[in-house]
């Protein structure tokens, strides 16, 4: 994933696992198509994280190949054919593991950084 507003290459490589986690989290709620996933990530992060489509689709393929997602063609809310991704049982386990790992690291980093400076 690269995050447009902080579009550093180092970041995108660094954060590859993050995009996977966000995708898994998004489809955990309900089956979703690619564009829907991108929009959901963007909306829920208050437009802080903007998904690069050049990373999104390869990531979807990768997750599907690993058996975390399954995909099938369905009908979208505007009555068109779209490819819907669903979280598999294996994907759900992966999500739980990744999520707890992420939280652990985030907590650790937060401890080092100390309390956020109060808004000026």
């Amino acid at each position, binding site marked *: 994933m690269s995050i447009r507003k902080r579009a550093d290459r180092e970041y995108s490589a660094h954060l590859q696992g993050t995009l996977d986690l966000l995708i898994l989290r998004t489809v955990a709620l309900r089956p979703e198509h690619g564009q829907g996933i991108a929009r959901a990530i963007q909306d829920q992060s208050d437009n802080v994280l903007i998904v690069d489509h*050049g990373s999104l689709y390869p990531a979807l393929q990768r997750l599907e190949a690993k058996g975390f997602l399954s995909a099938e063609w369905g009908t979208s809310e505007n009555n068109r054919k779209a490819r819907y991704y669903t979280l598999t049982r294996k994907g759900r386990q992966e999500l739980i593991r990744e999520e707890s790992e992420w939280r652990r690291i985030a907590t650790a980093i937060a401890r080092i950084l100390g309390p956020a400076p109060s808004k000026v």
Partner: protein
Amino acid sequence: MSKLVNLFRWRRDRLERDLDRELRYHVERRIEDLIKDGLSAPEARRQANLEFGGVPQVREAVRDTWISQWLDALMRDVHYAIRNLSKSWGFALGAGAVLSLAIGTSVAIFSVVSTVLLQPLPYPDAGRIVSIETFWTNTGLSSQDVSGADFLDWQAQNTVFEKMAVSYAGKDSPTIVGDRAVFANPGYVSADFFAVFGQTASAGRLLTEKDIPVGGAMPTTAVVAYYWALTHFGGAEAAIGKTITVYGTPLQIVGVTAPEFRYPGTTDIWAPWLTSNRNRGLHDYQAVGKLKLGVPLTRAHAEMRTIGDNLARQYAENRLKTVALVPLQERLTGSVRVTLWVLMSAVGVVWLIACANIANLLLARAAGRTREIALRAALGAGRGRVIRQLLAESSVLAGAAGLAGLLLASIIVGGVVALSPADLPRIGDVRIDMTALLFALALSLMSTVVFGLVPALHASRLDLSDALKQGGSKATVSRVSTRLRSALVVTEVALSVILLATAGLLVRSFQALQHEDLGFTKDRVLVAYTEYVVREDNLVADLQIRSNFFTDVLDRLRAVPGVNAAAGVAYLGMGREPRAAQDYFIEGRPEGQPGERPQAEFHAITADYFKTLEIPILAGRDFARNDTRESQPVAIINETLARIAFPGESPVGQRIRTGTSSRAPWMEIVGLVGDARWQDPSRPAPPVIFAASTQGIGNSPSILARTSLDEASLASTLRRILNDADPTVPVKFETMEEMFDFTLRYPRFRTQVIGLFAGMATVLSAVGIFSVLAFLVGQRTRELAVRRALGARAADVIRLIVGQGLRLVAIGLVLGLAGAFTVARLLSGLLYEISPWDAVTYLGTIAVLGTAALLATLLPALRAATISPTVVLRQE
């Protein structure tokens, strides 16, 4: 294969289509959202595309993940396969050995076949070079021998050949090189001979029109073979300008051929010769030609046929003949084609057996792994995934076996080349080449599909719950799997029977040939080829000198201790020098019409010839010292001729004459001798007239000596005697045994190689039977233990298992014998005095295979018998 490729392509197309649709949907959906947010349609489209960052780039990125996924999966499969195989290394080693053996032999034989039969001759545009032959309309056969007059007409009238040439193959001739006398093989050729083959000289120049002698003169120039120049002058350049004397004619060497050039046959020296147009009935040339570019063989054939048919109407001598074109390659390999295709089929059968064997092993293994596979399937591995995993295992196995096989092949090629007849065309060039390498890879791949897919499909059709319910190793073998494995064993046995029976027939036929009563004793006879040069311009005096020379040499040889008998013979037969039969006449009988007269072979020999070869004299006497040019001409005939020409009367005292010339004197028959199969031990003796070479008849003799000594030491003695008598007479030695062996070289080669393959096939099918039964015993351990516990004796268990094995063997035997009968009928042309229905062979086959099968079933049966019910049942 193309179906498989199509399948991949179809899958790939579908993936691409899906991706396109998905990406298109994404962009359009975004446009709709943006429009909803209040943007104009064009503006929304612009913004969506900008955000998306270009469909082609995204598509490319996705494709990259596909490839890396595929590679990942492959690596995983290979890794897993290697781990699995090394866990059961016994199986891997066994299967690998069987397969590499099969691949090794196939590649070796294919290399031989490919070099000898399939690779083009080493000449530029070799495909356009054809042998131009005489086609005899009465026999329907084509012969390489053509008449010079015919050839000149063909050359003048055709429009299809770029170049044409004739050669006249001389026989081994005494040749003086420096101060040594050797045998060399000269060929007399017309001007365009080398041009037909597109040859250039490796030193000096090749022959041209100017070299051709005219007006009956002898040639003065010659071109020699590269290796001959190397042997006698130490190099190509060194030979140029040297003079050699071939059968009394001095020739100056003007050129040396390229190293790879060798035509016709084993020619050492090419001398220019004017094509004679004198005799249409004399066929002593061989013609070759290079077709013009773009002229198909069929058209050339049709045109030459028309020319030949016209000549047939024009000349009486041509009444029964016309022209045929045969591609030179086909002509050169014609005689060995049968042998090589027989070998190729045999090796194919071995390969099939090996594959059935591997399939069986893998199948047994897959069944043993039923639970593992079922578990993986239950955990979500798709059927495709399981198949792929099993295929990966066989691929790794096949790949490793392919490499080992290639190594083995190079060893086997060495062996086959060593066993093969020396005159097998281009056998010296046989290498494991690129073709063979590709062939090995194709074989590996094919075996992967053959033996990998059967168990894979089978294993993946498992009933999951069924397999899981049954405990691991105790899983009863499904009926389908047992039937499939039994079918494989039956196939193996049947194929082995075919191969064994074929080998048996060939061996029996070969033995019959070897032990054929030849009518003479061939051991302990030394054969010395010599030739005394007689000049045409001094014929009468030279013939007398020659006769004295040989009388003298033979007398000195007979005086050597250990020499029991010695004689001269002008013709050594045994297929080396084909000998045309001649018309003969008997005094007091009508002469008959030309072409309808009886014929006999005509051999000039000295006294003691029959004593040397131990051919019995049935009536009359041998030739004697006082049968000279001045005395009454005498002849001896063999039994066959006596039976044909003098049925019911004594030939001794009758007078006979041969048809060489009407002035030939009547010869009085003084003796009758037993038949001897000189030329071809597989054919009955022809009628023969013997004449005394001391009476000035026949060619220069060679020498035969029967000895109680070692043949090699006698050879050096004889060489010294000859050299003392006349140093210009060359000599070559051979034993009669060697000479006889040479005539059997193709049958022997076939028999040895097929015998080897049949042995391999038997071992392989025994292994197959063993592995299946051993596996079944393993599967039935519990059942057998229960039986024992309920009172079955060890013998009952053995009977049960052996019975099961032998039932399969019996079915295989019946099917195999049916196949063998069919094959034997096809092979009947290769058999000598053995009927394709030879009972001994088939009984032998059944005995050999039956014994092997019995051993293979007995081992697992004995193991089954030793099962201890208490131990097995307590383990449960």
